[in-house]
């Protein structure tokens, strides 16, 4: 039995907050659940599948209690910011298999109001590999910087080319009334911003905001009778990359495995993709992800992201909402990639709408790109 084309996203809600010192993360989850269920035209009692992450090891139990859910299918996938993209994939499989009918995915975080230093805090997970890394002071941004430095070395990629990605995201954010940073920036502004972990400058890095969102998935059949036009799950795949006993090629990221498989499962080609939602934790994340997904060849990403190609009106618009670089980044941004894909496919994005968007490719990256990370690709389209 195939999963693809049988399930749909019926409800989507991005919480408008970017700073919520007066709210708890659980409240943001609940408000987002309400928003997505209202969007779908369903009630909380319809939910029989529950998916969340970023709430601690068994936090899904507490959150399910807070929301008073009694699901018959649960998944608290924990592979970093891509977890919520993974939830959609898993929900599609679960719904297609008859394990649940209405899946609710929620995310909420008050990272900014709690002043949580996500990218440049220390931290020692205590897992075996941490023993061989943490003593030397890797930060999250440092892990991505290792990939950027290597990419520059192998292919002559420049800081200007990386900066072009940040400039494009900001231009998109200027069209999104909910984006946190909307003032246009230039390549020179990016290069003049302070160095955080070379070669990544402050403006090569995503922000830290508060934020939340939720999605509701169900069978395509049921979704057709609901309030909104369904957005169909057409294909998807996951992958992990890690140090590989000390032999990993830093440019070989998880998207190189999950991307082609997701396209194959969806039965589409790169040229079919109208809009791309790529986790932009850092500018380098976008560049290597687009290469790995196969939109250009390895090493060509620097040239590919220039000339307006990834901007609105370009051949492959990426992150029309402004992404984590300019719209919001509460720590684990994957859910917003899917939400923006849904909004684009509904054609309701106003000045940032990709004209005629019928097919979207989403790719979430989670974890530390230079050490160990996850990649989840999802292909979604209009019914």
């Amino acid at each position, binding site marked *: 039995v195939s999963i693809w084309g049988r399930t749909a996203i019926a409800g989507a809600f991005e919480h408008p907050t970017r700073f919520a010192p007066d709210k708890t993360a659980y409240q943001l989850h609940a408000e987002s659940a309400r928003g997505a269920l209202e969007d779908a035209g369903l009630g909380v009692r319809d939910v029989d599948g529950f998916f969340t992450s970023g709430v601690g090891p068994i936090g899904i139990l507490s959150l399910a209690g807070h929301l008073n859910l009694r699901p018959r299918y649960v998944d608290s996938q924990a592979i970093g910011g891509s977890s919520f993209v993974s939830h959609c994939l898993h929900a599609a499989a679960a719904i297609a298999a008859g394990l649940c009918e209405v899946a609710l995915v929620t995310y909420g975080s008050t990272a900014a109001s709690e002043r949580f230093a996500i990218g440049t805090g220390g931290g020692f997970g205590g897992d075996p590999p941490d*023993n061989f*890394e943490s*003593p030397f*002071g890797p930060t999250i941004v440092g892990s991505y910087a290792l990939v*950027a430095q290597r990419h520059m070395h192998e292919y002559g990629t420049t800081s200007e080319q990386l900066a072009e990605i940040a400039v494009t995201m900001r231009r998109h954010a200027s069209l999104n009334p909910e984006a946190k940073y909307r003032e246009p920036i230039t390549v020179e502004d990016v290069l003049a911003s302070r160095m*955080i972990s070379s070669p990544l400058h402050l403006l090569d890095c995503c922000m830290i905001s508060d934020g939340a969102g939720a999605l509701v998935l169900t069978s395509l059949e049921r979704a057709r009778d609901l309030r909104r036009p369904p957005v169909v799950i057409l294909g998807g795949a996951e992958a992990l990359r890690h140090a590989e006993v000390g032999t990993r090629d830093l440019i070989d990221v998880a998207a190189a495995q999950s991307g082609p498989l997701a396209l194959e499962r969806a039965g589409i080609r790169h040229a079919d993709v109208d809009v791309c939602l790529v986790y932009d934790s850092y500018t380098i994340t976008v560049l290597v992800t687009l290469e790995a997904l196969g939109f250009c060849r390895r090493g060509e990403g620097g040239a590919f992201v220039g000339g307006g190609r990834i901007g609105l009106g370009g051949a492959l618009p990426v992150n029309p909402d402004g992404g984590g670089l300019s719209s919001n980044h509460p720590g684990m941004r994957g859910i917003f990639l899917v939400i923006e894909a849904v909004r684009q496919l509904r054609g309701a994005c106003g000045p940032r709408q990709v004209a005629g968007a019928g097919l979207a490719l989403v790719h979430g990256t989670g974890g530390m790109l230079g050490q160990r990370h996850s990649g989840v690709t999802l292909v979604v389209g209009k019914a």
Partner: protein
Amino acid sequence: MAEKPYKKPLPRIDEESRGFWEALGRHELYLQRCRKCGLLRYYPRALCPACLSDATEWLRASGRGTVYSFTVTHQNQAPGFREELPYVLALVELAEGVRVMTNIVGAAPEQVRIGMAVEVVFEDVTPEITLAKWKPAAGS
């Protein structure tokens, strides 16, 4: 000179990696190799990830390598690191072929380059723990 308290995270020596840390304490760098399939591996662990054999031998590394990638860290709020900014986080490719996360020391951060020849230097950070860091190779 009074000892400064060491604030950075310390590795936890466990049964899978004890031999590695004990060798570092003697200022020797050892890698594991699978006796069954011959795979050289880093970091140390009990079973070979290629063939799942637990027949393991220790191989003394030459202590020579090159910088595979690096980043000059200008921001890290963690105790121990924030006092030492900027510092160089790097992946060094050992002459034996495996890549290890480490710090480049004994060089100004702006002098570090990918491909630069480096050699191991042992830093006794506490009475129990020695870390392998890397510095520009003599004569390079």
